[in-house]
């Protein structure tokens, strides 16, 4: 009964989203204010019904209703309750439902938080979001309903959630990622609405910016958590695999990063307008492309679920409508957009333009490496794969000019700069970063490779130059403290974002250069040495969890004959499906991670063990989290909060 209710309420939500698509857009076209005014309530109503539908699925999962096909495939009665909840997005149908919840949620948020917008624009933004909602709901109802029943022959026990997904990281990773993916649809809708209205001014950029920043923050956080999850759960100690699914999420992130820099130029200087619009369209299109890649089943991946060609076709068609429609509108209207404002070569405008170029090139490289094997295969040329070295090499090359630019960028003012003003700061920054890096690396490591030195210097350079920028800009206002107080929130967001990148570059370069790994076969009492740590194998004990049993290898880690920690590396065997899973034991630290994975039993009481020493690997995620918080900071920026007064003003203007 409850699942049918879920399906029914999803149908109602679809009806509302059809209305949300038609009423406001038609109202805006004909100037009918009553139709436009219906939009916010429709948006909120749509969200309520989608939420109800999602609650129905969670209920079915919590009550072990194995007559529901989705629950039977993705849950089991022995699963702990929190994994029962997360199993609702552990499979395709449920994940798409979660996507819908996010989509409707963003739409409702826009409806509630856009009171200051003129009605024509507000109605159009919500109308476009409604159109996207129609597409996704149609997909869910027609091709991927999670509420299908297995009647009359239903199983007494479910197939259990994929053990890989039974991890805390899995609880938060998909919702965060989807928040980001779908959040880009808001930037897209603003761009389309602005094109429809024909008013691409800096107010449009100002409205669009907080939404873009928030979505970007969620996307970044989702990627970070995903990387951390892969590291701790897959047992290989890797944190990024250039897997098509990871790339699918990285591409919109890169474009969104370009977009939020470009938006700042459009907002502050009124230029780059058409480029910004194009990026907004591209960002969401890449989100959809990512969905297509993941859901269509043209790739092999841990993320790819049971697949169905109809689904891929639908998403491809929808992608065609969204991208094609967006670009067609863009082509029609872009000739009317004029960008005014002059600037010289040494200016912040040019720096941000170059930033955009680098980010777009990076996106194209990822896209090439991701799509080429698929195209190759679909053309019947056989299956190929493009190795990690390709991506690594390309990103390493791009990183050098990008990081240099990132250090100089904040120094630059709009319009034009005198070289003399920059000279000292740049010189000081370069000198300081070289000295710091050399002191740091040569005192810690015997062997420093030139590439490691270069990459780490770049990371330090980004951090140091950001520091110099803070200092010089604060010092203008008399005392330092006084100056720090005067900075805007978006300046602090920039600082945090750039420091985050510095952490990531340093983490990646040091962990790639100085990670050590050893595969060993050990009997109880054996000692393996790796760097300054000794690993003593104390034997294996049996373990029993709620839905699995297995072995835990106990290893004492010693440094100078003192116990540092005792690690339990587990090998689990899940009761249903008889799947084996390695649960790595990790001793996390700011400067290094000790990572231990239990292999198989070799002979007698000997076991194979894989030991990793991974320095600074945590910095990658620290950086990712810092950057994402930079995105969320904009929510605290007063400039983007609309007071009731301006809201009323806008209302009376639009009523005229």
């Amino acid at each position, binding site marked *: 009964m409850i699942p049918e209710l879920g399906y029914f309420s999803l149908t109602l939500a679809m009806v509302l989203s059809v209305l949300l698509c038609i009423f406001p857009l038609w109202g805006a076209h004909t100037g009918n204010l009553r139709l436009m005014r219906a939009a916010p309530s429709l948006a909120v109503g749509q969200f309520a019904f989608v939420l109800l539908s999602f609650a129905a699925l969670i209920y079915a999962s919590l009550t072990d209703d194995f007559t529901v096909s989705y629950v039977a495939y993705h849950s089991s009665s022995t699963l702990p309750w929190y994994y029962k909840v997360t199993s609702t997005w552990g499979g395709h149908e449920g994940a798409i439902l979660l996507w819908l919840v996010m989509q409707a949620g963003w739409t409702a948020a826009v409806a509630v938080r856009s009171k200051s917008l003129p009605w024509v624009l507000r109605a159009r933004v919500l109308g476009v979001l409604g159109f996207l909602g129609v597409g996704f709901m149609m997909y869910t109802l027609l091709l991927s309903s999670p509420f299908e029943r297995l009647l009359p022959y239903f199983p*007494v026990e479910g197939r259990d959630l994929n053990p890989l997904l039974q991890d805390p990281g899995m609880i938060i990773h998909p919702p965060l990622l989807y928040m980001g993916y779908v959040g880009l649809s808001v930037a897209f809708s603003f761009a389309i609405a602005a094109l429809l209205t024909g008013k691409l001014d800096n107010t449009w950029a100002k409205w669009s910016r907080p939404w873009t920043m928030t979505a970007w923050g969620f996307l970044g956080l989702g990627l970070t958590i995903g990387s951390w999850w892969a590291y701790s759960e897959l047992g290989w100690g890797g944190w990024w695999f250039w897997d098509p699914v990871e790339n699918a999420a990285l591409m919109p992130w890169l474009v969104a990063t370009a977009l939020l820099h470009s938006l700042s130029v459009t907002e502050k200087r009124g230029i780059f307008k058409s480029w910004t619009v194009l990026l907004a369209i591209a960002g969401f299109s890449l989100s959809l492309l990512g969905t297509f890649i993941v859901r269509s089943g043209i790739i092999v991946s841990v993320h790819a679920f049971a697949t*169905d060609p109809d689904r891929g076709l639908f998403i491809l068609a929808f992608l065609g409508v969204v991208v094609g429609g967006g670009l067609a509108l863009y082509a029609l209207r872009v000739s009317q957009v004029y960008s005014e404002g002059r600037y010289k070569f040494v200016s912040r405008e040019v720096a941000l333009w170059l930033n955009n170029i680098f980010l777009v090139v990076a996106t194209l490289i990822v896209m090439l490496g991701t799509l080429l094997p698929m195209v190759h295969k679909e053309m019947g040329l056989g*299956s190929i794969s493009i190795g990690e070295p*390709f991506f690594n090499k*390309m990103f390493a090359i791009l990183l050098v000019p990008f990081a240099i630019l990132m250090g100089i960028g904040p120094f630059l003012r709009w319009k034009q700069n005198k070289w003399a003003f920059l000279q000292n700061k740049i010189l000081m920054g370069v000198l300081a970063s070289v000295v710091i890096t050399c002191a740091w690396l040569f005192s810690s490591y015997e062997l420093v490779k030139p590439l490691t030195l270069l990459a780490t210097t770049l990371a330090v350079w980004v951090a140091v130059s950001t520091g110099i920028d803070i200092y010089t800009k604060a010092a203008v206002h008399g005392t330092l403290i006084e100056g720090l107080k005067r900075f805007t929130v978006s300046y602090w967001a920039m600082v945090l974002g750039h420091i985050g990148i510095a952490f990531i570059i340093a983490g990646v370069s040091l962990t790639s250069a100085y990670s050590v790994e050893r595969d060993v076969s050990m009997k109880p009492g054996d000692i393996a040495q790796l760097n300054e740590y000794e690993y003593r194998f104390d034997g294996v004990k049996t373990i029993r969890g709620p839905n699995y049993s297995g072995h835990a290898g106990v290893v004492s880690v010693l440094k100078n004959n003192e116990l540092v920690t005792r690690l339990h590396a587990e090998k689990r065997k899940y009761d249903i499906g008889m799947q084996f899973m390695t649960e790595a034991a990790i001793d996390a630290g700011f400067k290094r991670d000790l990572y231990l994975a239990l292999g198989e039993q070799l002979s007698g009481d000997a076991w194979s063990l894989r030991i990793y020493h991974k320095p600074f690997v945590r910095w990658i995620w620290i950086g990712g989290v810092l950057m994402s918080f930079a995105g969320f900071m904009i929510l605290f920026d007063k400039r983007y909060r609309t007071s009731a007064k301006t809201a009323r003003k806008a209302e009376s203007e639009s009523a005229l």
Partner: protein
Amino acid sequence: MNPRRKKRLLVIIAVLFGIGTSIGLVLYALQENINLFYTPSELIDGKGPNKEKPHIGQKLRIGGMVVPGTVERNEQSLQVSFKLIDTGPLVTVRYQGILPDLFREGQGIVAQGVLVEPNVIEAFEVLAKHDEEYMPAEVAEAVKGIKHEKPKYNLDSGS
């Protein structure tokens, strides 16, 4: 040509040159890192209409079923070797290290490595990624010639 046009021309040439070099670099790097996928019989008999065989030393990917009873481990080290099959001849894969959790005899795997003898591969990576049938899609397609199908629900499982 007036100075402004001349400047513009120079900029355009510089941009085109930049784009050209980068595309060249990208394609070069790409070519170096493309690994072809073979099944054991394709490796032995040749792949495609021209029956192209990989040469010794080539980096490639191979996918097939692990032949039961062929997994041999070295007692002292982590050296392991096993044979792969699809529809015809066998190919030996050698690997040093810990095999993935889902590696089992009779199951489909994908290995990445270098061809050291016409029928021996020295693998540096063994993957046992799987769909719900415990079979990498590439292998499923190669072995059975089928497209991925939604697995039939097994009514007895777990009970």
